[in-house]
């Protein structure tokens, strides 16, 4: 019996070693790729969305949505290949009754498995929560809130060419100057092509503090020093963003000053 167990263990070790050797020599051979995911997700989403509309008593065909997606795995610096729970997809579609936000897309979170199947979590602001009300007023499951899909591991792997701009946001909620009035503000740049760049004009009340240029990589965070000290007694600071790459907040962002 002990001999048997030993041999089985040895066989398993051999299999795993062989497997590792195969992996080591073959490199990135995952069938989970960005183009396949983008193609599968848009079809899948359009069907689910049309189903949701049907439940609500609306008539929408999947094709009329013109859904487009851009997927990205775990930040800009990684290859967009392989299974994982860190896939994000930006998707836009056309529904007259549900306009897209200013950046023009919603962000979907995907958990992709090595067997080429995935689970999608949808942005509830655009697609609703776990349950929804149907045309007759009953509480039913929202098909779009979370859904599964699988794609063909041998499917079309040419890039879809869909690109969305990154979304810049001001992450700080207050401005906290030090003894000299110097302060910083934190910016984040979301998923999207090419990252975020542009200038921010900063004013404190009526005082112009100047402009700050910025350049953030996709999916990164950066703290910028305000161009001039915040004057004593200023209650709030306003940031007006001018984007050259990516999209930013359409209206000026005003943050309260703390500790003065």
């Amino acid at each position, binding site marked *: 019996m002990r001999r048997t167990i030993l041999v089985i263990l040895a066989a398993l070790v051999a299999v795993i070693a*062989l497997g590792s050797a195969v*992996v080591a020599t*073959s490199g990135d051979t995952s069938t*989970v790729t960005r183009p396949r995911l983008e193609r599968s997700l848009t079809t899948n989403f359009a069907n689910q969305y049309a*189903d949701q509309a049907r439940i609500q008593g609306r008539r929408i065909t999947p094709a009329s949505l013109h859904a487009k997606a851009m997927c990205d795995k775990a930040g800009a610096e990684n290859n967009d290949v392989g*299974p994982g729970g860190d896939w994000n997809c930006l998707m836009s579609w056309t529904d007259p009754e549900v306009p897209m936000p200013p950046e023009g897309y919603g962000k979907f979170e995907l958990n992709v498995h090595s*067997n080429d199947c995935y689970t999608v979590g949808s942005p509830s602001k655009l697609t609703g929560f776990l349950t929804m009300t149907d045309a007759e007023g009953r509480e039913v499951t929202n098909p779009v809130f979370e859904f*599964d899909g699988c794609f063909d591991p041998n*499917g079309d792997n040419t890039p879809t060419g869909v690109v969305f701009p990154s979304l810049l946001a001001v992450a700080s909620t207050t401005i906290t100057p030090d003894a000299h009035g110097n302060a910083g503000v934190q910016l984040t740049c979301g998923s999207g092509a090419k990252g975020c760049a542009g200038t921010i004009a900063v004013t404190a009340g009526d005082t112009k503090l100047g402009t700050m240029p910025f350049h953030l990589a996709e999916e990164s965070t950066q703290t910028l020093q305000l161009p001039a000290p915040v004057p004593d007694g200023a209650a709030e600071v306003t940031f007006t963003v001018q984007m050259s790459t990516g999209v930013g907040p359409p209206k000026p962002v005003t943050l309260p000053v703390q500790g003065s």
Partner: protein
Amino acid sequence: MSATTTAAAPVDTSPATRRHPGALAPLRWEIRKLRAQYRAKAVLIGALVLPVIVVVVIQGQSRPPKDTLFGRFATDNGFALSLLVLGFAAQWVLPLLTAVVAGDIFASEDQHGTWKTVLTRSTSRAQLFWAKTLTACGFAVIVLAVLATSTIVSSVLIVGHQPLTGLSGQTIPAAEALRLVAASWATMLPAMLGFTCLAILLSVWSRNPAVGIAAPVVIGMVMQLVGALGGVEAIRPFLLTTPFEAWHGLFADPRFTGPLTEGLITSAAWCAVCLGAAFVMLRRRDITGG
């Protein structure tokens, strides 16, 4: 002993001209033995009854098991429920069901010391090998058919036959869904036969029914685990558990069958290697026990 001497073997000085068993005789013998075993009957009854229990239990859940494919629809769609059971069965139930017979069919001869009993008749080792292999494979087919039928019928009857949402979000009409579900269960066969051959190899090699039955299940679970890891996907095509997931393509739109073909090749390769090794082992072996 009695004085009945009539039966004492007659003197025969002619050259040995004995009838030889037909090709099917060893097979009939193996099937007869299998039918006399409680274990085989228990497995078949289990395959018939357990799905009904599982279906009733899952249907009674307030929260559907979302972490498995089709799980989120399982409590209100019979087709989804039978696919959920399918995904679960592929993890270890199918290897176990076939290994109960295939892992025992050679090793039990060691256990009962009966190799010498059957090998001193007019049947060659090769004939016995193929008879046992065919019996084990035949049993795999039957147990899969029973399990599939029981699962599909009970889930459709108990939960219902609503249209099914496919893996591309498309709606699949009930009649089509039934065909696809049945086809999905049928696609389990190649890999299940692969596990049958693996169990046969382990049965011949270990001469121990417990190893023959348990090891394929453990190996199956390890392969499942390895196949689910990210980063080692290059070995997925070689794993015997990968064909168990090939049915996914049937529920996509457009449908894809590449994994089914690849699964067939993988399973056939496993079968060929395992049976070849088992055959050589049995042919060369010195039967010293019993």
